[in-house]
């Protein structure tokens, strides 16, 4: 009989523990509470979203937003101190590092699309960008149709090169499309006249032009290859508790008007380290999104 009583007690104890467990923290939040640290993934040259300044410290628009999220997480977990660890990521490492728990948030310029949402989650959109092309003013290009029969470059593996390929077929341009390894090399192809145009997210083109030797030689096309697509801060999938805290934090930031001030700091004023000015005022679409934050990957939802 004694044995049975012990087993009964043990069962009861298990029940109580699991009941309590249901209210306890899980996933990323639990991990942050246990370690007292949160890790942000940053990019080293994604100007002005996330890049290194002259002190090798990651700064940028997405970094500022991430620090606001960190404040919210700290408040949510009622922590006195929350250590922020910084971990560099590239486009090739951001997924493995997110999956294995090295980083908790990726603060950069990652496009939020339906395909990627099968693997990760994104919080509310912090930027919208459309595919356009950069060209030398001396080449006299005006519209997408002017690319007929010309050599055009884009970065391999981007949605931009896909849109360019589609437009090439749909409009019968007969353009010679070449892929480049990264944005810097694609821009170099235009700089050295290997290609007449480089198709990419317009904001990245603006930053490449601002950082080039002769910014006045280049212009970005008015014509776009796509609707504005959303950039989002990436987090692990299937962690609803953490996503709720992060979404609430970004929504509060965007709707309060504070986000627009942060936007102006990075996109319309001189930014470190070289005092470049991207001269990109906030778009109507992004203004709308800030008023009604959403994490939708569908470009049609941003009008």
């Amino acid at each position: 009989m004694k044995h049975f009583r012990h087993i009964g007690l043990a069962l009861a104890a298990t029940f109580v523990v699991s009941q309590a467990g249901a209210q306890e923290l899980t996933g990323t939040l639990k991990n942050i509470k246990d370690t007292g640290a949160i890790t942000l993934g940053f990019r080293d040259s994604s100007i002005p979203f996330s890049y290194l300044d002259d002190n090798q410290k990651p700064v940028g628009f997405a970094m500022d937003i991430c620090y606001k999220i960190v404040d919210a997480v700290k408040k949510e977990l009622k922590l006195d101190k929350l250590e922020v660890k910084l971990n560099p990521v590239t486009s090739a490492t951001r997924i493995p590092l997110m999956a294995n728990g090295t980083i908790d948030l990726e603060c950069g310029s990652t496009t939020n699309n339906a395909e990627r949402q099968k693997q990760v989650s994104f919080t509310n959109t912090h930027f919208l960008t459309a595919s356009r092309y950069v060209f030398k003013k001396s080449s006299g290009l005006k519209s997408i149709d002017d690319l007929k029969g010309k050599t055009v470059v884009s970065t391999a593996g981007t949605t931009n090169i896909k849109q360019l390929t589609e437009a090439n077929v749909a409009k019968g341009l007969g353009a010679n499309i070449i892929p480049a390894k990264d944005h810097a090399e694609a821009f170099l192809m235009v700089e050295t006249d290997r290609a007449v145009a480089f198709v990419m997210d317009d904001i990245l083109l603006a930053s490449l032009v601002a950082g080039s030797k002769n910014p006045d030689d280049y212009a970005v096309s008015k014509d776009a290859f796509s609707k504005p697509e959303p950039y989002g801060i990436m987090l692990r999938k299937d962690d609803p508790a953490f996503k709720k805290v992060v979404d609430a934090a970004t929504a509060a930031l965007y709707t309060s008007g504070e986000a627009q001030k942060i936007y102006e700091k990075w996109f319309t004023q001189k930014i470190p380290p070289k005092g470049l000015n991207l001269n990109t005022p906030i778009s109507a679409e992004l203004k709308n999104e800030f008023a009604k934050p959403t994490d939708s990957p569908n470009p049609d939802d941003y009008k």
Partner: protein
Amino acid sequence: MNYNWNWGIFFQPNPMGTGTYLDMLLSGLALTLKTAALAWVIALITGSLVGVMRTLPSKGANWFGFAYVEFFRNMPLLVQLFLWFFVLPELLPKGAGTWLKQLPNAPFWTAAIGVGFFMSARVAVQLQAGIGSLPRGQKMAATALGLTTAQGYRYVLLPMAFRIILPPLTSEFLNTIKNTAVAITIGLLELTGQARSMQEFSFQVFEAFTAATILYLLVNAVVVTAMRFLERWVAIPGYITGK
């Protein structure tokens, strides 16, 4: 690990509209093989010429061979491809530079020739070592038979030296295949390039690179097996490389 494995991804259509993701990788593999094959032909021919030059009695030929090998062997391949692709056309007269830049398939030709020259320096050193490993008497015997220097190389030294260096040449060939991966730096979408594209589009990193790894391993297995057959086929009983 919080990773969403999806091995079915290979059979889903790729966003470029060129079939499935697997098709994308296979087209990359085809380009890898084409680039490697052309590069290996270039490497074997120029490497053999330079290797022979390094063993000739002529001081000039020796010096040229030495300079060639040191030039191509001591610079990282990545840097070399960058130089050939981006810097060389800028140093040429404007007309020639523009012509070169506007060649169709410029990344392919640059990659094949660039990797070919890089590997040729290694082939040259192998061949030089192979010839050097032959007993000095061989050369003298050739001369005593009344063969000219060229004939001596053609009929005596090279057939022996090539047999000796066949196993290391196999690994140079494998290196040539692997080195084509560097060509993504100049925009050639070979196997590694396509794996990267697949990763960027679908975010299925591990599947993409696992597939690429397996494809590289398969190709290398084929090459190794073929070279073993070649070694057995050219073996001469009684020689150091024979059975």
